Each structure stands twice: as structure tokens, then as C-alpha cells.
């Protein structure tokens, strides 16, 4: 469970998040949508503990991301929007590196399993510097889920992935237990995997409801998105 209270973040004069409040419950896939610069990635970075914020409080399973950061991060898996990984390590070395730092038991078996699932097995012995964007994304996805965290933060999780791996990752998100938060622009992805949607615009939550409610009311997530976008900009 992730709770966010009165979270505010400024980049110079620009307000990225303006006193936002969220409670992300267990066993749900929650989608955060919004236009470019709405604050989606900023929100996820703050929750992952890699970006400081100005005001408010963030807790992961009851642990504050500021005061109890290490405990909080134990319960998290994070995939950034454009993952940059150590280019000089091979895929296998990087995954063992993360597994060692996360204290994962039975790492070899898990890496083999997840590499098979994402279709990256044949490239594990190559340096990451030679990987395509999709292959880097696959390695980053594995590194985010290798320790089976209760809470997952995925920023554009299927971006750059081939259709088969994209479907596999979507299935994985649907079936897993725990909280999964995805920041995305893809309305299709939201309709396929999410239980709940938050619409974030200009650093504030303008609408939030279950996907089924949005679908019943507007016919599609895309329609809902444009409805609220027009409302905000009106």
C-alpha cells in the first residue's frame, strides 16, 4: 500500500505536483494518466525515493520514504521511463548485481525464469551497451520484479517492447498480487490492465475512478481523458 499526502514538488518556478493526495490499495493495478509534464514521472520518482520533494509525506507499506527510506525501498520495484543501465555489464551481470544488492534468494533460477518470460535469454551474455531500447526495457523490467516486491512503480512499462513481450508483461501485471502503479499515455494499456485510473493534469488530480466506471460513463478511457482535458483547459 502506498499513501501520498499533500505532496508538492517544484522545479524552479514550475509546479510539478501541487498538494496531491493518493491512497494506492493492495492488489490493484492503478494507472496514472496525464499530458506531457503533468507530473506522472515525478510522482513515481518521488515514490521510488530517487527524487526529493518540497512538502508532504509518502509512505510505502507504512514506511516513510524519507525517514525509513531503506525499509520503504525494500518493498518497491521501480522501472523508469527511459532506463539507462550500466553499459559495460552484460545483461546477466546486471541482473546478478541487482539480485545481490536486493538479497534475492535463488537468483539464478529467477533470472532464467524471467529472462525466458521476456525473451531476452539469448542476449544475456552481451554487454548492455549493445542492446536495443526494447532489450534494455526488458532487462529493466526484470530488475524491477526480480525480488517480487509488493509494490511496483512502472513508468511506461510496455514502451519499446515487441507485441508478444508487451502482452506477457500486461498478463504479469494483471495476475500478480500487490500494488502496481503505472504511469502511461497508452489508453489501450489502461483499458487492458488497470483497475483504477487517476487523471493528473497541471500537477493536480482532476478525476479518479475505476476503469469500469469511466468506460460506462464515457465509452472509452480516451474519451474520458479528452473530456477532462477540455474541462481543465476551458
Amino acid at each position, binding site marked *: 500500500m502506498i499513501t501520498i499526502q499533500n505532496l508538492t514538488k517544484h522545479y524552479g518556478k514550475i509546479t510539478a505536483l501541487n498538494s496531491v493526495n493518493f491512497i494506492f490499495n493492495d492488489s490493484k493495478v492503478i494507472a496514472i494518466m496525464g499530458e506531457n509534464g503533468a507530473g506522472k514521472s515525478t510522482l513515481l520518482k518521488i515514490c521510488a525515493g530517487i527524487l526529493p520533494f518540497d512538502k508532504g509525506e509518502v509512505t510505502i507499506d507504512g514506511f516513510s520514504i524519507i525517514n525509513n527510506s531503506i525499509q520503504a*525501498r525494500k518493498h518497491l520495484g521501480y522501472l523508469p521511463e527511459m532506463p*539507462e543501465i550500466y553499459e559495460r555489464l552484460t545483461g546477466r*551481470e546486471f541482473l546478478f*548485481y541487482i539480485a545481490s*544488492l*536486493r538479497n534475492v534468494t535463488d537468483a539464478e533460477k529467477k533470472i532464467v525464469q524471467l529472462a525466458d518470460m521476456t525473451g531476452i535469454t539469448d542476449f544475456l*551474455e552481451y554487454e548492455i551497451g549493445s542492446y536495443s531500447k526494447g532489450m534494455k526495457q526488458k532487462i529493466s523490467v526484470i*530488475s524491477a520484479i526480480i525480488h517480487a516486491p509488493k509494490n511496483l512503480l512502472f513508468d511506461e512499462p510496455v514502451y519499446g517492447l515487441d507485441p508478444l513481450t508487451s502482452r506477457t508483461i500486461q498478463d504479469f501485471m494483471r495476475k500478480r498480487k500487490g500494488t502496481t502503479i503505472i504511469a502511461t499515455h497508452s489508453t489501450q494499456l489502461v483499458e487492458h490492465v488497470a483497475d483504477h485510473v487517476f487523471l493528473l493534469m497541471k500537477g493536480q488530480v482532476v478525476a479518479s475512478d475505476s476503469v469500469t466506471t469511466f468506460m460506462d460513463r464515457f465509452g472509452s478511457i480516451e474519451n474520458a481523458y479528452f473530456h477532462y482535458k477540455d474541462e481543465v483547459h476551458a
Partner: protein
Amino acid sequence: MLETFTAILTDIRRSLFQKIRSSPILYLFFSSMMFFSVVMFAFLTLFLMRTEADISLLDVFFGIFFIFFMKSTHDFHTHFINSPYLSYAFSTQVSQTKTIREIFLVVFFINTGIWFSFSGLYLLTLYSLGINIYYPIEYLVFSTGVIIAIFLGCSIAIHFFSSLRYRLLPTVILLGFYWFSQSMVFLVITLPLALLHLVWSLSHAMDSYLFVNRKERIKDKSQVKIRDIIPTICYREITVLWRDKLLFSFIFTSITTGLFTGYLAIYGTDLLIPESLKEYAGEFLPDMFVFLGIYIVVIYTAVFPSLNLFLNEEKTMWILRNLPLSNETIVRGKVLSLTLCFVTSLPVLAYVSLFVGLDNIVFLIWLLVFSYIAGIIVAVPLGAKYVGKKSDILLLYSVAMILFAVLGVAGNLGLTLITTRVDAFFLLGAVLIVEVFVLFLSLKLSAHILSIR
């Protein structure tokens, strides 16, 4: 037209300005340090001229040549071989060779810029001290030497990472000829040859880029295993140092510096000092050469990798930050990798001892260990302060200057203790213990700096 050239220069300029804006006082200090050292060199020149010391122009020329050779090699490696952004430029309809030539232009522009601004400031100071600076031919020869050094530095950076290593041969042959000829004129007249070699190297540069960026590593599979946290962080650092071939260059520098230092310690006084001054400087010079040798090795094998522990984490810091690790653990894991770098600095002692014998070996070991730890103490917090903001010459130069002053005083005190007190070794041991405590504080400070960002 020159899109890549403009883009890289803009990136470098903005990065520097951003660092200056974020820490203006620190950068004011760095700049004044740089200014001060150039002026100091001018005063040193004045002193040497007044004492009629026989400083060889050839040695100064080759010293400058070597510095620019190393710097341009490093710059070309950073902006070409090691650049994560070039794939964008290479994917456009612009010829890849043209893009690589533009990268060379950046390196050329930066290094000649450094040469002309530093030498200009130096000459201006000499002029203000009343020294005649009208030596246009000499200045032209020195400038041509710098240009050739940049040409060959870029060429060696290209072929060192090529799958066809024999392509290094032309550069090595040229360098060999320079070494054996010991002539500035000979070096300068090879400018067309160096240019031709550079053009050929640039047209074959893509092979090296592709070779470095697509490597299968089946042999290293046995080393992939679960480790404890600090050894895991340390192992990654060492892997990168090994694969970027930095450990080899550390050992190479250590050996060559050891040989030069040893040679100068024995023959330097006869070669450089006139008979009339030997009485005053004769005893002082060998110790100074040994100190300088150890100092150079420490800058290259301790300060440079210490700064890069964090400076190089440009966009990958998110990996460590989102893991359940304390900043202290991260700092300790990274700093542990420097123990291997320390091992690469040891040959300097062995090769110096070949010339000067083993009489002072304990003191030399102490000086190396003390200098090495001092290098880490100064460099790691600065690296943590500028995490992800790639090294710039101001930073490296300032750390080098701070250390020069600290190690100069410490080395002198150590030598005085050794020669005057029976219990000197106990005192030197105590100094090391205190220094280790300061190192501990420095690592704490680095962890704190990381946490406030």
C-alpha cells in the same frame, strides 16, 4: 553544417555553467587555483633564469606534448568511444565519418583552446615580470607539437579499442621515432604525416565504435554470482575499470613514471643543474623528483578514479538510489574498488627502487600510502558533490593543486622526521592512523552529500 560539433560544445558549455551556478564559490576557488598555478610557473621560470639553471627546452616541450597527448586521448574516448548519445547522430543521413570528424574538431578546439589560453596567461605574466617573451619560432614549434599531440592522441584512442590492434602500429612507430630522435624539429616536420595518419584513423574509427559497443562475454560467465552488498558494488566498479582498460593504463603510467623518476633521481642533478648551484640544490633535487613521481602516480591512479566513482554515474544513479541501500554502503562499496587501483600504483616504488636502492623503501611506501589516502579523502566528497556531472579540467586540476600543497608539506615533514628522530616510524604510523580516521570522516561526508541531493 557542424551539427554534432555545435551540439557537443553546447552540452559541455552548459554543463560547466550549470556547475558554476550551483557552486559559485567552489568554482571561484578552482579558477583562482588555476590562475595562481600559472603565475607560480612564471615565477618559477624567473627563478630558474636568475639562477641560470639549465632547464632543457626539449624536456619542457616533451612534457607539454605528453600532457596534451594524454588529454586528447581521454577526450576523444569520452566523446566518441564512450559516448551514449552518438547513436542519434550516426542514425541520420549525415555521413558517419563526417560526424566523427566533428567530434575530433571538438577535441581539437578544446585542447588548442586550453593551450593558447594557458600559454597566453603564462607569457603575459612573464612579460609583466620584465622577461623578454619574443620567441615566435619557439612558440610556433611548441604549438605545432601540441597539435601533433592532439592528432596522435585521437588516433591512439581510436585504434586502442579496435578489433584490429595492429592499427596502433603507425602511432607507436611515430612516438618511438620522437623518443629516439629527441628532437623538436624532427617532431614538428612530421605534422603532415601525423595529419595523414589522423585522416586515415578517422575514416576507420567506426570499426572501433562498433567493436566496443557489441561484445559478448561468455568467458566472464563464471564470475557472475551472488555476492555480499559491498563486494557487489565494488565488483561492478572493478569490472568497468577492467573493461575500459583503465587498469592497464594505471600500471603503464606507474611503471613509466617509476623509470623516469628513478633515472632523474640519479642523473637529474647532473643533467639539469649547473655546477655553481649543485651545492645548494644537489641534495634537494633527487628527493623532489621522487616526490613528483609518486605525486603523478597518485593523481592518475587515485584522484582520477576517485572522482569518477560518482562523476560517471550520469544517468544510472537511479539504479542505486531506488535500491534499499544506505548512502554509506554505496560509498564504501565504491571506495573499496580503489584498493585494486592502489595495487596498480605499486610498480612506481619497484621501478624507482631499481635506481635509488632500498635504503628508503619504508619511507617511500609510507609516502605512497599517505598520498593515496589523501587523494581519496579530497576527491571522493567532490565526486559525490557533482554526481553525474562528468569531470572537467577545473575540478581535476584543483584537486591536484590542493594535493600538491598537502603532500609537499607532509612529504617534507616525513623526511625530516626520518632523518632526525629515532622513533620516526612510530610517528609516521601514527600519522597514517589519524589519516585513516580522516578518510572515515571523508566517506561519511560523501554519504551525507549524496543524501542531500
